[in-house]
């Protein structure tokens, strides 16, 4: 809440009518809260939490009721995790079901019950055949519904047209809703969440409207056929749920450090429901997203992820109790010689990552600087149109990307009848289902190969333009799709090479004729894994103005890791117009001698200091403590509500006992509670590496510098970042955006 809003708060009586509607009033910021786009002070939050805990523990010995309250306080963490898991699982289930239905809506509709997707519609029908498992008379394509013809050129054109129209409608609705209601709902959200978790404040990013709009528009964006996934946005949705439930308990709502523990666990729950893998979610939260991850958070994250996964399973969106997104079973072991194609796939993953990062950054820069950025709605519509027009003819791009990946991971047994599994079968074969000997590829496989190659090129190109638009979008699934397609192509190539050339040296020891030796599905999985690792790197390296990353010096790398989350990500750091930069002193001093409220107000009004040091007296300048710049005006303005009789000419004191005053003076104002008596100090001879280390490991926000026992100045986190930027030959002024 900015100071501007403070000034314009309407004067309403605290005892006004309608306490029910009090939530509509503007919340008055408390002393100890933080401004938007600033960092929190981890040490202060930690000490406040310890104080609170100590108070509760000491009070719990007083009576039974206090004991129960202390138990409730201890349990509140687990209750929050339970609620987060339930809500995340429910929302993920809703999203899955809705995406399933709306994706199929582009092609046709179920006549018996319009809310069924294609697979659900044909669930009970008996007219499905082995070759056309999906066809049934209850589900009709649009052309068949409108004109009565199922085949033919006219039907094809009509289907094509309607597919493109539905895609355009969905994406237009998505971008309009994002623009009107919650602009923070665009993008995937993971970089900003990383920043928030490292101690940054972005108000509104995890709000209720953002949650609602992100859920609704994510379904629309994924259903429109664009080359994006829903895993990244699901993490954002889960963190919004976490933020929502934090506000129920004052233990979390008032303490920003504790809140971030909850958000770490919520991120784990988000990934857990996206992939159906609770442990994967916890590892993701631990490694990728979190900054402060104590052991307690590990267990809580796992609990939240489990609850979320179980809730999703209870809703059962996939209809056959399948929870994991891609469920594969391979029966053939892999051989050491297969490492060569695996390494090739790894190299491909690296190349794809580099290409994607460079191209996407260049395109995003163009979006930022040229006319393209002024028309976000038109941009979304144009990209959707192009995607739909190019994707419809190729059956592998027409269907949703998750289905494509599932099919590519699938091992071809006797039960499959897709084009990709059209191998030439020996009609007298009587082997059991799982043990399929190597077979030559039929014409269907070759057909599939060139279609897949086209799909690969298309996906690589279109993802570069899709990412960065103003709709919720995730990068996991498109990267996996690119890798899976490449892997499958390589796998089929190796398999056919092994079949036709049994006598080559590399295949002689490993592939016996008549036995299965190469599993193309496994290659697809390896390819997907290789490509998944790469494109997320720009979040670690690129500066907010999207510069080309320069090679870092090795000695600085460690220092960067801790604070790089601040530096690299969020360009949402606004320009710091509130603080003087450069030569002007960043602090002023107050003395322990009594001053008056109006003098303080004059001091605050004229300047915008970051902090105030409190000294014993002007002459001795012996250092007493430190007051945060934001706290002082808040404490003064809030005081009329707390202590009666405080007026402008009241005396302000920082000591424990009030100064002796004649009784005619108005009530003095005690401001000791906003005074930090133990700020962190270093001397001016401390090497900069140590200072950077201290900031990183302790999570400090500012640090005081002394020389010979006297206070010399103050270093803030942003100063450290600016220094590091200068070391790396980047423009230090750009840190104002951090």
């Amino acid at each position, binding site marked *: 809440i900015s100071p501007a809003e403070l000034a*314009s708060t*309407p004067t*309403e009586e605290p005892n*006004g009518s*309608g306490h029910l*509607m009090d939530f*509509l*009033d*503007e919340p008055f910021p408390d002393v100890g809260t933080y401004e938007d786009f600033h960092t929190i002070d981890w040490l202060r939050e930690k000490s406040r939490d310890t104080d609170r805990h100590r108070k509760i523990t000491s009070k719990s010995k007083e009576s039974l009721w206090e004991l129960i309250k202390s138990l409730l306080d201890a349990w509140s963490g687990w209750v929050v995790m339970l609620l987060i898991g*339930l809500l995340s699982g*429910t929302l993920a*289930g*809703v999203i899955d*079901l*809705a995406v399933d*239905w709306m994706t199929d809506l582009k092609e046709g509709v179920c006549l018996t019950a319009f809310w069924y997707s294609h697979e659900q519609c044909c*669930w*009970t029908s008996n007219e*499905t055949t*082995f070759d056309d*498992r999906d066809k049934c008379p209850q589900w009709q394509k649009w052309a068949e519904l409108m004109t009565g013809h199922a085949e033919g050129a006219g039907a094809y054109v009509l289907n094509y047209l309607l597919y493109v129209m539905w895609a355009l409608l969905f994406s237009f609705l998505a971008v309009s*809703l994002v*623009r*009107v*209601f*919650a*602009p*923070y709902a*665009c*993008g*995937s959200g993971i970089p900003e969440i990383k920043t928030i978790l490292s101690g940054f404040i972005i108000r*509104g990013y995890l709000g*209720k*409207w953002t949650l*609602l709009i992100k859920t*609704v528009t994510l*379904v*629309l964006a994924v259903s429109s056929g664009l080359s994006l996934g829903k895993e990244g946005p699901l993490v954002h949705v889960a963190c919004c749920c976490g933020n*929502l439930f934090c506000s129920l308990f004052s233990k979390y709502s008032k303490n920003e450090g504790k809140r971030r523990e909850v958000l770490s666990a919520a991120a784990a729950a988000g990934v857990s429901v996206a992939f159906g893998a609770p442990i994967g979610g916890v590892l993701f939260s631990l490694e990728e997203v979190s900054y402060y991850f104590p052991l307690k958070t590990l267990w809580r994250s796992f609990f939240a992820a489990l609850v979320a996964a179980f809730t999703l399973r*209870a809703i*059962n969106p996939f209809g*056959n*109790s399948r929870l994991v997104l891609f469920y594969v079973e391979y029966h053939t072991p892999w051989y050491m010689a297969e490492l060569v194609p695996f390494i090739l796939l790894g190299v491909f993953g690296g190349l794809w990552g580099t290409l994607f990062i460079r191209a996407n950054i260049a395109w995003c820069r163009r979006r*930022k600087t040229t006319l393209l*950025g002024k028309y*976000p709605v038109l941009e979304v519509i144009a990209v959707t149109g192009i995607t739909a027009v190019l994707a419809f003819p190729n059956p592998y791009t027409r269907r949703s990307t998750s289905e494509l990946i599932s099919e590519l991971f699938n091992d071809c047994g*006797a*039960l499959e009848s897709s084009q990709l599994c059209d191998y030439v079968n020996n*009609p007298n074969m009587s082997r059991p*289902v799982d043990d399929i000997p190597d077979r030559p590829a039929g014409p269907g496989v070759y057909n599939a190969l060139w279609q897949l190659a086209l799909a690969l090129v298309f996906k690589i190109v279109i993802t570069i333009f899709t990412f960065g*638009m*103003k709709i919720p*979008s995730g990068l996991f699934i498109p990267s996996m799709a690119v890798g899976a397609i490449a892997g499958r192509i390589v796998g089929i190539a190796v398999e056919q090479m092994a079949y036709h050339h049994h006598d080559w040296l590399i295949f002689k020891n490993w592939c016996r004729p008549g036995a299965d030796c190469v599993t193309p599905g496994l290659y697809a999985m390896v390819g997907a894994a290789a490509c998944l690792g790469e494109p997320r790197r720009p*979040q670690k390296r690129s500066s*907010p103005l999207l510069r080309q990353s320069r090679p870092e010096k090795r000695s600085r790398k460690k220092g960067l890791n801790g604070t790089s989350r601040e530096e690299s990500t*969020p*360009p*949402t*750091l606004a320009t710091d117009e509130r603080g003087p930069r450069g030569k002007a002193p960043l602090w002023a001093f107050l003395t322990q001698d009594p001053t008056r409220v109006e003098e303080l107000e004059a001091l605050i009004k004229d300047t915008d200091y970051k902090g105030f040091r409190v000294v014993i007296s002007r002459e001795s300048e012996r250092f007493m403590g430190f007051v945060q710049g934001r706290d002082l005006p808040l404490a003064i303005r809030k005081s009329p509500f707390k202590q009666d009789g405080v007026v402008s000419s009241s005396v302000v004191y920082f000591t424990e006992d009030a100064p002796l005053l004649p009784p005619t003076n108005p009530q003095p104002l005690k401001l000791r509670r906003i005074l930090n008596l133990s700020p962190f100090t270093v001397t001016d001879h401390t090497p900069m590496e140590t200072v950077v280390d201290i900031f990183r490991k302790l999570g400090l926000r500012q640090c005081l510098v002394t020389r010979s026992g006297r206070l010399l100045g103050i270093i803030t986190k942003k100063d450290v970042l600016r220094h590091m930027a200068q070391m790396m030959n980047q423009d230090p002024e750009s840190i104002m*955006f951090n």
Partner: protein
Amino acid sequence: MKSVFLLEAFSVACFVLLNQVTAKNSEDIRCKCICPPYRDIEGQIYKQNVSLKDCNCLHVVEPMPVDGKDVEAYCLRCECKFEERSSATIKVTIIMYLSILGLLLLYMVYLTLLEPMLKRRLFGHSQLIQSDDDVGQPFANAHNVLSHSHSRPNMLNKVEHAQQRWRRQVQEQRKSVFDRHVVLS
């Protein structure tokens, strides 16, 4: 907005309750057996609404296309899977999603098209001072309406104030995301 939170909590609660309360439709379980081509018989898919204990080739594959001795060989190659779904969950989810989407679209149409027209008629052209870059944006009159508000703290005014505050926040967000392009994706 706490009302949004209440609405969401309410719908989630309804959803979970409905999930438990609705009786299990007998059509919601099935056993699906896929049998690949065998000799001169084509591949077939058989489905029946049987429970888990009857989900095997002998119960589900009817009529059996092969005779006595070949039945075992044929059944060995078939794969039977038991599947269940909740049609009530699907129905409730889709209808709830569509209704929420519809409500949001109506509200969006109201905010972008109807409200400026209504406000213009109520307050007259002279009193609206819109800055240049606000023209055409949704919520353009957020600042203006505040100045016209009465000072009586009744419920309607509180709702109005809360709404204006929300609009200002959204405008701020929109400036940083759409104009300055500061959000990474």
